Every structure is written in C-alpha cells, then in structure tokens.
C-alpha cells in the first residue's frame, strides 16, 4: 500500500509527519472521507475548478491562499492556532491550573461528546446544501457555497484530528460514525435537529449561514476558551473561517432584500412575486423559522450539562476572559426567563446552570444587529417595513418553552391557535414552493445574476464581480 505523502496531502501544523499513531488513524480515515465527499459533497462538481481559499499555515499570510482548484484536489489541512505561552485554565474548578495538553481521564467522555457533536454539524451542513449548486444564482454565489462547503469539510477534519489524536479507539469510531450519519436520514440522522432540516433553496442557505453558522461561531467561541488546549487552538483557527460563512449569509439575504425593494419601488407594489422576486413577508417567515430552530441548538435554558462542562473547565462563556467576575460562578445567580402561568417570569437560577441561555442571548444579540443592517437596506429605499426577530419562546422544541405555544410577539396562545395560524409566521408549503420555483437552472455566466437577487457590491479577494469564480470543464 502506498502511503500518503502528508506534507503535501494534508497541510498541517501538528507535526503530522512525526506522529506515526496519528498518521495511521488519518490514513485509514481519509479515503472514507473522500468517499463521503464524492457521495454527499456538492452534486456534479467533480470536474469544475473553483476559486477557493485554502489554508496552508496558521500564520496571517498563510491561512488564505486563493487559486482555482478542483474540489477533490482541495487540500483539507489540520491547523491549530499558534500556542499561547503558559496558557492556563481560565474558569471553573481548575481555574489557574496549567491548560491540559492531554485529555484528563475523568473528562474524557464529556470532551469526546462535545467534540463529536460539534464535528457532526460540519458534514451535516455540507449534506444539507449539496443540491444548491444546480440552481445557483451566479458564479460568485456558487463559489461562496463551495468555499463554505470545503471549510465545513476542513472543520470536520479539525474535530477528527482531535478525536484521532486524543481519544484512542473510541475517537476513531466516532470519526467513522460522522461519515456514516446523513442529514435528514431516518435511520442515521445527524445528532442535532437543525442539521436534519432541508436546505432546499438559496434563501434557506443564506439564512442558515447567517443564523445557524452564527450558532457555530458562539459554540466555537465557548470551546475556544476550553482548558483542553488542543480543542481551544482548533476552535480559534476555525473561527477565522466561520466569519466568511456569516458574511455569505448576511450579504446573501441583504441582496435578496435589496432586489425585493428595487422591484417594489419600480412597480410601486408590495406584490413582488409576480415579478419573480421574493417578498419581504416571506423573508420574515424564513427568518422566524431559522431563528427558532437554531435557538434550540443551545439546549435547555437551565442545564446540568452546561454547569458541568463549565465547572470542569471544558467549555467557557463567550469571551470568557473579558468578563469581569470570578470565572467560577459558584455563588452567583443569573436571571432566566421561564414560562409561568400563561406568561413569562424572570427567575434567578444558579449562574452555572444558566450558561446555555447566556450563550443563546449573546448569539441573539449578534443576530439582531445583522437584522438591523437588513432593515437599513429597506429604510434606504423608503419602504415602511421592518424585519423583526421572534420572541425566544416562539416555535421551540427544546427547553422549557417547548411545552407552550407562543406567537412571534411573545403572546402565549393555545396550541390550536398556533396550528391554525402557523402559516402566518413560518414558511408555508406554498412559500417554499414559490421560492423553489425561482430556483431555476444555474446561472453560470460570469457577471450574471438571477432575477431574484442583487449583485454584490464587490468580488472575492479584490476580484471583479464578473470574474470567472468557477471554471467548468
């Protein structure tokens, strides 16, 4: 069997060529990964050359190398952010101890679980998006989709590296299982609910990258604080890439809004569907859906697991070290909204148990800022319409709001009323069908854009908007 030339095949800064154990593990996993990519990666792209960003080192000049590359030749690398000298565990019971370079025995399963759940989301979103290339609104967007996809692939590599390097046989098994699960599959679903939803159209894709990848950002930020140093360094490097995903989402939705506003103004009508663009109320319903489904990813508002993983020093808060408290939270409380007698009440709970909720609120604030930027686009056109985020209790399947029905404004209603009025608030069958109907054949001429989306203000890496971001063979 010819062995893989790692220096060339897998760009890395983890000293792979010196590590026989890790080589063996990755050697047996890599072909399976390639098989998975061929089967579940973007459909019908094997011969195209795509203008992709590749990381070849973790240095500022090395993590963004641009060039046209075939997707299967893409070099998924393993990069950790540079080590921080004398790094400490910065929170929880171990605060002040040296950060761990190896997994502490007692935290092994907790860490493995966290890494597996994080890792599982990466291939899941690639699977969810695999058909979007067939109806891309432009080469620019197609390239962004592929960029997001290869980076989700690289993030899977990053998590698999941790599993292989630190979790022995169990870790190798988990890595295999990540390639065996399939988004939306009845028998082998992805671990988290939101990653089994369909991403059938580009509006859903942009919403997903704007909202759900932002959850990814906050989870990565919390894990970047980890006392387990390899996890922290992995996540820090992943965060540099995640920013682009959210940019794709925010600007994508922004351009759809822009186009809707243009058509509304030109034709002095709210009824823009007859002009083949997506109307603002439909965008609002998509927003409601993605926001509520992603809210669930944070877990229960009051959670034992959250308390345990913080106290163990495994998963911190967003920007942990910038928070001015004791970083142990043993005797502090945090106010958490609870459903109480048909309304809501803020109840003080031990701060340790409220960490999921804190992270959720950090994320929600960030999402709200993006929504405000979208509203500026609408306002600029002088249109009287505002996109809003639904109440946190709206349409929830996890946590203590999952038992009650709430309208987007936060009014508690009966489940019957919710069922009756669902289509006012969430994308209806006909909304989805309409948006899907706009997703015609792919727009593949450089500089051309589908009718329902405005062009971007600028291209990628200082290239022109009409640059040939994808070259078809």
């Amino acid at each position, binding site marked *: 069997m010819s062995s893989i030339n790692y220096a060339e095949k897998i760009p890395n800064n983890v000293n792979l060529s010196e590590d026989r154990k890790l080589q063996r593990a990755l050697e047996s996993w890599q072909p399976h990964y390639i098989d998975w990519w061929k089967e579940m990666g973007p459909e019908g792209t094997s011969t195209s050359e795509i203008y992709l960003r590749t990381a070849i080192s973790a240095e500022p000049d090395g993590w963004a190398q641009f060039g046209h590359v075939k997707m299967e030749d893409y070099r998924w690398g393993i990069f950790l952010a540079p080590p921080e000298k004398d790094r400490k565990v910065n929170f929880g*019971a171990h605060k002040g101890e040296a950060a761990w370079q190896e997994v502490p025995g007692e935290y092994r*399963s*907790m860490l493995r*679980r966290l890494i597996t759940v994080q890792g599982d989301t990466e291939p899941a979103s690639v699977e969810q998006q695999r058909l979007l290339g067939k109806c891309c609104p432009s080469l620019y967007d197609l390239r962004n989709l592929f960029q997001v996809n290869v980076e989700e692939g690289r993030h899977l590599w990053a998590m698999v590296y941790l599993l292989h390097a630190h979790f022995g046989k169990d870790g190798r098994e988990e890595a295999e*299982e990540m390639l*065996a*699960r399939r988004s939306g599959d*009845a*028998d*082998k*679903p992805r*671990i988290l609910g939101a990653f089994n939803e369909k991403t059938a159209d580009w509006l859903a894709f942009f919403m997903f990258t704007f909202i759900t990848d932002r959850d990814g950002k906050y989870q990565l930020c919390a894990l970047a604080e980890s006392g387990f140093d390899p996890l922290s360094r992995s996540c820090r490097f992943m965060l540099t890439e995640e920013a682009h995903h959210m940019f794709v989402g925010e600007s994508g939705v922004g351009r759809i809004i822009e186009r809707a506003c243009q058509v509304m103004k030109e034709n002095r009508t709210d009824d823009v569907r007859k002009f083949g663009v997506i109307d603002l109320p439909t965008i609002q319903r998509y927003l409601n859906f993605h926001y509520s489904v992603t809210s669930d990813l944070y877990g229960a508002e009051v959670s*034992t697991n*959250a*308390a*345990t*993983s*913080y*106290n*163990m020093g495994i998963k911190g808060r967003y920007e942990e070290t910038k928070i001015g408290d004791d970083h142990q939270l*043993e005797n502090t409380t945090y106010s958490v909204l609870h459903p109480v007698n048909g309304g809501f009440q803020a109840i003080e709970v*031990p701060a*340790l*148990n409220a960490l999921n909720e804190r992270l959720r609120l950090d994320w929600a604030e960030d999402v709200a800022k993006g929504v405000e930027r979208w509203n500026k686009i609408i306002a600029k056109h002088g249109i009287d319409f505002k996109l809003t985020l639904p109440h946190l209790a709206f349409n929830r399947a996890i946590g203590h709001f999952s038992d009650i029905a709430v309208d987007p404004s936060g009014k508690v209603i009966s489940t019957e009323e919710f069922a009756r009025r669902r289509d006012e608030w969430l994308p209806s069958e006909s909304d989805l069908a309409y948006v899907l109907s706009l997703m015609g054949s792919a727009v593949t001429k450089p500089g051309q854009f589908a009718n329902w989306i405005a062009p971007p203000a600028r291209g990628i890496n200082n290239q022109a908007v009409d640059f040939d971001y994808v070259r078809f063979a």
Partner: protein
Amino acid sequence: MINFQTSPESYRHWKLSFDGPVATLTMDVDPASTLAPGYELKMNSYDLGVDIELYDAVQRLRFEHPEVRAVVMASANPKIFCAGANIKMLGVSSHGHKVNFCKFTNETRNSIEDATDNSRQTYLCAVTGTAAGGGYELALATDYIMMVDDGNTAVSLPEVPLLAVLPGTGGLTRVVDKRRVRRDLADIFCSIEEGVKGKRAVEWRLVDEVVPSSAFKAALAKKAAELAAKSDRPTSEKGVVLSQVSRVIGTDSVTYPHIDITFDRSTRAANITLKGPKAACPADLAGIKAQGVDFYPLALARELDDAILHLRANETTVATWVFRAEGDSDLVMGYDAALQKFGASDWLVREVLLYWKRTLKRLDVTSRTLFALVEPGSCFAGFVAEILFAVDRSFMLDGTFEDSTLPPAAIRLSGLNFDGLPMGNGISRLATRFLGEPDSVGKARDAIGQDLDAGECAKLGLVTGTPDDIDWEDEIRLMIEERASFSPDSLTGMEANLRFAGPETMETKIFGRLTAWQNWIFQRPNAVGDGGALKLYGTGKRAAYNQERV
C-alpha cells in the same frame, strides 16, 4: 400517607393500549405529578409514584387481560426512553424513603420477570431514546430488549461515574447474571456515563437486537407477535377486574374485609389477623371465575399485599408484626385444594397462586420483625400456613386457654407448603428451614393434610416454641418488648441474613448483596455529604471524595 392503590383512569405517568394479544405500556411521565414536593420528573425519570402505577399496570395486565400474551414497554418521549430514578428526588428523600423506594422498584421489576416466566405474558422492551440507569434497569427486567440504532440511543448505568452510587434496581446483578455480560465488559459499561449504543450493545449482550429507525416499528410488532404466539394464555376468557381493595384506616388500626390490623403503640407492634373464608370454595372453575375478585385466596392476597406496602411505607416505627389467623381450617383447605387442582391448567388460578408467591416474597424481604402466633380457633392451613414459615419466630399454644371453649390449635400442611410457593432463593420455605435436616422435609411432607397439634408441630420443627396457657402471655410479651429494645438497623441486617439460607439466585443477590451495598453507599458522605456527588448533581460542581477505600 403513601397510597399504593391506584387504577388506570387515574394514571399520570403511564398509558396502556391493547392490540389483541399485544399490550403496550407506554411511559409518559408527567413532570409535575410528584409524590412529594421539591423536584420535577423531567425526561421520563421516576419516583415511587410512577412505580406504584407501573406495579398496578403489571398486576392488571395479568388479571384483567388473559388475552394479553406479550407486553411492550415503550416510551412516549422520542428523545429518552427513561432516565431512571429522579436524582433530585433521591437528594431530598430521607434514607428510609430511598431504601423503601428501591425495595419496591425491585419487587416490581421482579414481578415483571415473574409475568414473563410464569404467567406467560412476555415483556419486551422498545428502547427508543436513551435508557439510563433505572431506565435500563426497567429494560433489563423484560425478556427481550430491542433498541433503535439511530446513532444516539444508548443503554447506560451511569450511577458510579455520575452519582457515586449504584444502580439500585438490580441493574448490576442482571447485567452479569441474567444477560451474562462478561464481567470485564460490564466493568467498562458501568463506568461509561453515556453508555453503549448500536452494534456494540448487542455484541456485549446488553440488548438483544438493534434495528434502524425506519424498520423499528415493524420489527417490534413482529417480535411481539412471535413472543405472543408462544403463550398458553386463553384467547377468549374474561379477565377479573381488580376493583378497589376496601380498607378503613383508623388512628391505631387498619381494617380490610379479611385482615384486621391493630397497633400496640407502646410496644411498637402491629397485630395482623388474617380471617379465614366464610364459605366453602366453589366446586368448579366456573364457580371460581364467577367469584372473580372475591375468590378468597385472591381477595386475601390483595389485602395482604396492600397491608404490607402500607405498613412498610407509612408505619415505619412499628418494629414487630405479629400474625394470627382466625377461621375454619377445613374451609381454607377447600380453597387450597382448588389452587392445587387448577393451578397448572387454568390461567386465573395460576395467577392467584403466583400472586400468593409474590406476596409471601414481599414478606420475606420486609425489614420488620415477623412473628406468628398459633392459637385455638386459628386456621393456619395450606397456603395460609405458609405465613408460619415466612416469619422469624412462631409460637403455638400447647392446649387451650382456661376460659375458652375452643379446641386446641392445629396446623395443617398441604402440597403448596412444599411446591408452588418458593422463596426468592428458588426453594420452599420448609426446605430452607430444614436445610440442615433434609429428613425433616420428608417427615413434614408425610404429615400433609393432618391436624398437627402443638406437640406434633414441635416434634416436626414447624414452630419455634409451644408454651402452655400459664406461660403464653408472658412469653409473648417479653419477646415483643425485647425486640422493641434492639436497634432497628441491626435487626434489619440480622433478619435479612437469617431468612435466606440456601441457594443464591439473582433475586437473593439483588435483595441481599446489591441492596446492602447500595444502602451503605447511600449513607456515605461521598454520595450524600454536602460535597457528595448525589447532593451536587445538577449544580455542575464536582464532588470531593474521601479517598479511603473501606
């Protein structure tokens, strides 16, 4: 007061549904319906209240549904099958409540196994969503565990790593003894918080089969039908509805139709008098079935069962239970003969016998001193006489009381004292009693059906002592007073050890070894101290263990 009586219309946590020979018992715990304040039953976790309903359902399935040949245990919660005993509940419960709760859950699990093995009503378990701790123990009590292979669903016994206690409902014992999991793999399994899923769970024999989600429903139905087909339960008989057991609870008494209980608070004794039947046993099966729930042995078993549970839970300072039986031995023997005659061939009579067996076992593992007094006018005969061999000491009046016209007391043995009502150790109480003198079992067997007076009983070793009327009252009084002066804890330990001579079985291991260790661990600071794991569970804080191995 904890009430052990319930019925399906008032269930809060379980749903029963029927499809011909297959019943489904679905766990859908209402978080707010707790037995005590201070916790919520989230994630299909349970407290004693949930288990009281489960016990009721298991009983009703046996008696009210002769047509049911297989019972599927399922969960209505798609994410979790059952999370086991509620940890917060354990944290706020007294030690005594925890012990009682564990004992009852164990008895309920055993009754599920008894239904499979002897009522031919086979339990199987549909594990969809994680079965953790007591949740897996529930599955272990069934005959066949089918688990969904969805990459997420696992079985686990996370008590040691998570809570510093043991799975207290037979989990450890059943893993190695019933499912024969290799001990080193079991050791690993019991140390993994998240448990074992998929193929490995089958390889390790933790479950019988894993099935993908899409094929699960069909596979389950097929398996249930297959198990149902093996049963000998009748298809077109009517069940016996278990109507409410009537009882009147007074300050110092509890009265049932066939059992009178009075409390002597000064000596902390309960006088429990079983009353014999008022009429002769129906001549045939049809007559027995017409009586249904009023058929004397069934009525008495139900009352005794409830009495034991009530006294255990609600009369915790009563140290000594003193049993008497009042009535006509001839009538009792008539019922005894019917139990023997139809027990092997008829589902209902078999069920009644099995119920007696289980109720007597409940007595065997009750942590109270058990005495029995055989006085003139008593009816310790056949299956009722079995009480005499369950108690710690028995006394029989030699002769008569001075101002009484009643003839001297006599005991009558029947085949049931030798076969059909085994203890948890798998052999009869008499065989256990005469472990060191096997000949005595034969001699007793030869005396089946005879009226045995005090002298003969003493000779045969069937009773502890035979005082005459001059000594009787003092002997009994001194014995009860002495008992009340001892430490309740040491008595519990002493009695539990002396009652179970003879072979070890899974049951004796559960009530002996597992329970004893569990109850010890439940007292230890590593579990229940302020820095103990059970106390800190859910706060995210780490337990600080005292590292001395004891």
